[in-house]
C-alpha cells in the first residue's frame, strides 16, 4: 500500500490534535487532544517500521514505549487536573492565569532632585 496515505492520515490527526490543544477550555478535553497527537506519532512510527522492513522492529517497539509513556502521562496529568479542580472548583483553562504578569500598582515616577 502507499506509504503516503498513512503519513497523510498521521499529519491530519496531528493537526486535529493541535487544534484541540489550543482551542479547548476544559483541561480533560485538552488531554484528549494531546492523546490524539501522540497517536499520530505512533502511526508514523509503525508505518515507517513497515516500510523499512526493520528486522529489529524498532518502530513498533518504540510505538509501544510511546503508549507506555502516554499512559503514565495521562495518569499524572489527570492527577494535576484533579488538584487544580480541588483548588478552584473549575478546570477551565481560561481561569487558570495565576502566572500572568499583572500591571503593578501605578506609582508616579519622580525625577531625582
Amino acid at each position: 500500500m502507499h506509504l503516503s496515505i498513512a503519513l497523510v492520515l498521521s499529519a491530519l490527526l496531528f493537526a486535529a490534535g493541535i487544534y484541540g490543544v489550543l482551542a479547548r477550555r476544559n483541561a480533560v478535553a485538552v488531554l484528549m487532544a494531546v492523546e490524539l497527537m501522540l497517536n499520530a506519532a505512533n502511526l508514523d512510527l509503525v508505518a515507517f517500521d513497515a516500510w523499512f522492513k526493520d528486522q529489529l522492529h524498532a518502530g513498533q517497539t518504540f510505538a509501544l514505549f510511546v503508549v507506555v509513556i502516554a499512559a503514565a502521562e495521562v495518569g499524572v496529568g489527570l492527577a494535576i487536573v484533579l488538584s487544580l479542580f480541588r483548588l478552584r472548583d473549575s478546570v477551565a483553562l481560561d481561569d487558570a492565569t495565576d502566572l500572568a504578569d499583572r500591571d503593578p500598582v501605578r506609582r508616579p515616577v519622580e525625577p531625582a532632585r
Partner: protein
Amino acid sequence: MTGADVVFGLLGIVCLAAALLVVTARNVIHAALWLVVCFGALAGCYLVLTAEFVAWVQVLIYIGAVVVLMLFGAMLTRAPVGRAQPLDSANRPVAALAGVATAGILVTLVIAAFKGAYVDIHHTAVGDGHVLGTAIFRYFVLAFEVASVLLLAALVGAIVLTRQERD
C-alpha cells in the same frame, strides 16, 4: 490501488472524522467516546500495517485504560454532562489557524518526500507477540526497564499529587 489501500483509507476516514469530533464536541463525555472510536480505527490501521501486537496494545491500553481514566477524570471534575458551558475557549480562531497551517505544511512535506513510497505488506514479518517480545527483550531491554521505572514514578507521583491532607 490495492485492497489494503482501500481498507486503510476507509479506516483513516473514520479515524479522522472521529478525531475531528473529539476536538469539536460540546460535551466532554461525548468527546471521550468519539476518542474511543478514533482509537479503534487506529487499531485497525495498525492491523493493516501488520503490527498486530501494537494494535492489541492500542485497544487494551488506550481504549481500555486511558480513555476510561479520562472519563473518570471528567466525571471527578464535574464536567457538565450536557450542553451547559461552552467548551471552546476564546483562542479558537488562532487555534484553527494553527491547525490548518500545521495540516497544510505537514501534508505538503510528507507528500513531497514520500510520494512514490510503497509499503510491501506481504513480505514483512508480522509484528506479533513473539517477534516483538524477542525484539524488546533482546535489543531494547534497557529502555524497557527505564519505562517500568517511569511507570512507577508516574504512579507514585499521581498518588502524591492527589493526596488530601487529613485534618
